[in-house]
């Protein structure tokens, strides 16, 4: 397995990637757009892009992922894709009848410089329908940038400040997390008794129940009028700097809605911060139910600490999730020694976040020195692990090849998870999500210990 990866690290200067830990913007844009109620994402580019993104998202969610494409040919690539886009808009509304069409670009349409707003303006859009758009060139940033840009597109095209005073309501931008996570965040905000709009919201879209009927536009997703009304909220909470902050910033600029950027609420500290932000801004008491959950989590953390304390971990994945995981592992007394994201730190696409700085800021008080990299790849992560072995890898499915090559257990967290099921329904965020993470981590470590222990050391109680 991965026999050609040498232990010796040679600096690669080409800027090329071997075994990526990121993919391109349009996938994230498609995922974000699916979080709008009755929305059909549209990929303005070659058919292959749309096909790849749909396939990949479907493999992760195991749910229908619907999207249309401008089906560029060589002619469109030379003369511009305007005509293809106009035909697409007409056909999409007459055949698939969504309420919203969310168009994102691709490297092809960006390279030829297609002008989306003017094409959309001159297209036939039925009166009660909406077209929104985002520029998502695949040659900048990553799928997280694309998620951020499409969320920004929602603000840009839909949000409006229409009331004189801001309403006592919050906007929650959840970032690139699973529907199960979005549901959990909503549950927490509801428990806090705060009115809110979450956008995008893929719960009820990418975790729909089996009913024997296929519904092209399921019940979930944020309604257009709610995104519009986000301009009247008094506060936006952007969860995850990379995926969410830019949209919050734009909303502040456009509609004067203050925002606070928080970490993706993975682990006890980040969840505490979310709950505290809600408490402070909306003067709400913390309900006993939440305090009880938190207490249960701390109880589990302390009672099981001998099962994970001091274990060395390699973490990789999307920046917001990796930052959250790193903080939580430190809260558990674990040692994250290799921390890598494929998403680059600074991109012309402009999403914020200083991954390395932020991670080092977390590591410092714990006195842990780690290899930390933004814009890295899994070839490099593997080499790090060869040079400094770990007890556990936490990351997406692609980590299984390194895990097998080095015989290290893997806990699957993040996107994409292509070889396991159910995870998209269950949270890793909030206090409940933290409990689930501990369960996954300890089960994995203890299964390994059971597998490797001699008969005389095999324990009934652990």
């Amino acid at each position: 397995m991965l026999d050609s990866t040498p232990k010796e690290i040679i600096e690669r200067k080409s800027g090329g990637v071997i075994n990526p830990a990121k993919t391109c913007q349009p996938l994230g844009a498609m995922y974000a757009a699916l979080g709008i109620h009755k929305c059909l994402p549209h990929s303005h580019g070659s058919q292959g892009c749309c096909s790849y993104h749909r396939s990949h998202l479907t493999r992760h969610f195991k749910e229908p992922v619907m999207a249309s494409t401008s089906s560029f040919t060589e002619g469109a690539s030379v003369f511009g894709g305007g005509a293809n886009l106009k035909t697409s808009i007409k056909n999409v509304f007459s055949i698939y009848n969504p309420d919203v069409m969310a168009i994102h670009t691709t490297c092809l349409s960006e390279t030829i410089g297609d002008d989306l707003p003017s094409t959309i303006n001159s297209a036939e859009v039925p009166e009660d329908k909406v077209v929104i758009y985002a520029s998502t060139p695949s040659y900048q940033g990553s799928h997280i940038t694309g998620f951020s840009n499409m969320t920004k597109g929602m603000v840009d095209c839909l949000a409006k400040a229409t009331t004189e005073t801001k309403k006592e309501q919050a906007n929650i931008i959840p970032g690139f997390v699973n529907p199960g996570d979005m549901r959990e965040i909503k549950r927490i905000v509801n428990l806090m008794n705060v009115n809110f709009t979450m956008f995008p919201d893929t719960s009820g879209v990418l975790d729909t129940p089996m009913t024997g009927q296929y519904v092209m536009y399921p019940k979930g997703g944020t309604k257009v009028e709610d995104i519009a009304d986000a301009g009247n909220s008094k506060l936006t909470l952007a969860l995850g700097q990379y995926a969410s902050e830019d949209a919050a910033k734009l909303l502040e600029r456009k509609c004067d809605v203050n925002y606070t950027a928080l970490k993706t609420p993975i682990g006890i500290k980040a969840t505490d911060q979310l709950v505290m932000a809600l408490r402070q801004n909306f003067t709400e008491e913390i309900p006993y139910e939440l305090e009880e959950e938190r207490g249960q989590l701390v109880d589990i953390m302390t009672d099981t600490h001998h099962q994970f304390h001091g274990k060395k971990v390699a973490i990789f994945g999307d920046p917001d999730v990796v930052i959250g995981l790193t903080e939580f592992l430190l809260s558990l007394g674990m040692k994250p020694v290799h921390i890598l994201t494929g998403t680059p730190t600074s991109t012309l696409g402009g999403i914020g976040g200083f991954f390395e700085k932020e991670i080092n800021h977390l590591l410092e008080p714990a006195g842990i020195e780690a290899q930390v990299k933004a814009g890295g790849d899994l070839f490099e992560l593997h080499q790090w692990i060869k040079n400094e072995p770990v007890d556990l890898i936490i990351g997406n499915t692609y980590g299984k090849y390194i895990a097998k090559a080095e015989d290290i257990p893997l806990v699957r967290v993040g996107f994409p998870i292509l070889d396991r099921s159910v995870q998209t329904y269950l949270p890793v965020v909030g206090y409940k999500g933290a409990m689930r993470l501990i369960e996954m981590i300890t089960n994995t470590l203890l299964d390994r210990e059971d597998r490797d222990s001699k008969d005389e050391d095999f324990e009934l109680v652990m």
Partner: protein
Amino acid sequence: MALDEKNLEAMLDQYPAKVKRNRKKHILITNSKEEQIIEANTRTIPGIITNRGCAYAGCKGVVLGPLKDIVHITHGPIGCGYYSWLTRRNKAKTEEPGKNFLTYCVSTDMQESDIVFGGEKKLSKVIDETVSIFKPNAITINATCPVGLIGDDIQAVAKEAEKKHGITIMAFSCEGYKGVSQSAGHHIANNGLMDQIIGDGELEEGPKGKYCINILGEYNIGGDSWEIERIMKKIGYHIQAVMSGDGSYEELKNAHVADLNLVMCHRSINYIAEMLDKKYGTPWLKVNFIGVQSTINTLRNMALYFGDQKLIDKTEEVISSELAKIEPQLESYKKICAGKTAFCFVGGSRGHHYQALYQDLGIETTLAGYEFAHRDDYEGRDIISEIKGDADSRNIPDLEVTPDDKRFRLKISPERLEKLKEQIPLSNYKGMIPEMKDGRVVVDDLNHFETEEFIKALNPDIFSSGIKDKYIVQKMGIPSKQLHNYDYSGPYAGFNGAVNFAKDLSMSFESPTWNFIIPPWRETPLLEGSIEEGEA
């Protein structure tokens, strides 16, 4: 409910007029009494939710990607390389440690500055690094959309790098916008392999006394070609090269020595088959190893081609022993499957091939079609001369080959060839439609709207297609079988494959999970009571 012209028309009436006019030509109800024409390999209408992919997917993803001892570099932004990395289940194993690169995805990860200033230098550096890290037998460079637009000369970069590193480095201009589907990419890949690898080896002939064959258009999904090879070896064939499942540069360069080329997926590889015929005088045989009866037919056709009684006898012996082994296993599955109906919509050959396997199990295919086929895959090669090229097909160059001065050798006499052509599909393919019963639906480039409509109209027991429509159909309570990747199972080819397929299919039908769709409260009233007679 069956489908007739009238309700097909009513279904299509829901489309805007222009879309209807276009789509009508891609759909037909089979009728052997008429000469039927289907439109194929034309543009998908923008806005239509199609299953189709692009030229890059056909070139790097399908044909080149499985070649294991080659590092395939994607020149472009990160997405294309990432999506085509390990997702297709083309399995490979190697005896030589460090010569299987399928678990690696190498991409130039083009950034905005590369788009603006050109990516050639970056590509050269990535090639240098690839050679020094992997020491591969060869390298392919696969272009994505922006490459052609910004004018990167990848052919020149490849040539330069080849000189520098002394290994074969091939550039494929398979930008995603070329052609109308993956099919363009197959053609581009075929041309490149023919031009730069096949015939590059030293061998002048295959091993003595062996029937030397190549298997073309077999990608070893779920281990299919290993099952095919198992049967072949049992009979006594020597397999020179498989294109391209579990294939390698090392085998491929000597592919010219084969006495016969077997063509499994006609769509993706017929170009090479034709060129090998012209250049080396090697005929090709259309084969189908999907299904018990079609595997038997294929083995008999092969034996007939070589015409050696010993081989014919050995073939029959192997068929008997294989049947004796699998028939008892198939029996219980056949009971579960019999009388059911299926939709079979796959890429370029499986839409046809799997109908045979369904038939073995007593399942009737009521709708079939291809994602990216041409008219000849439906109607047979006889109509090729009628196909007019268009702007999209003309931008894929045809590779002109001529008989090789030294290596061209007729494998069988022209007289025998002509005689054999009457008996077996030698250098010919009759297409899908002639093998379907009348009154069945054939759809080219089936889209989402039509998928829903045809399911409503024909109510199949099993839907077989790919990942994008799988869960749509399962939401309707109908099991869906992925025939692109076999739902992570397989092999499905050959004799053992038929058993695997029958088992998996039976599992889909028999799974108790389907029984829970309707919650009990939907079928039980909240209040139970009775009305006494006379009271109302």
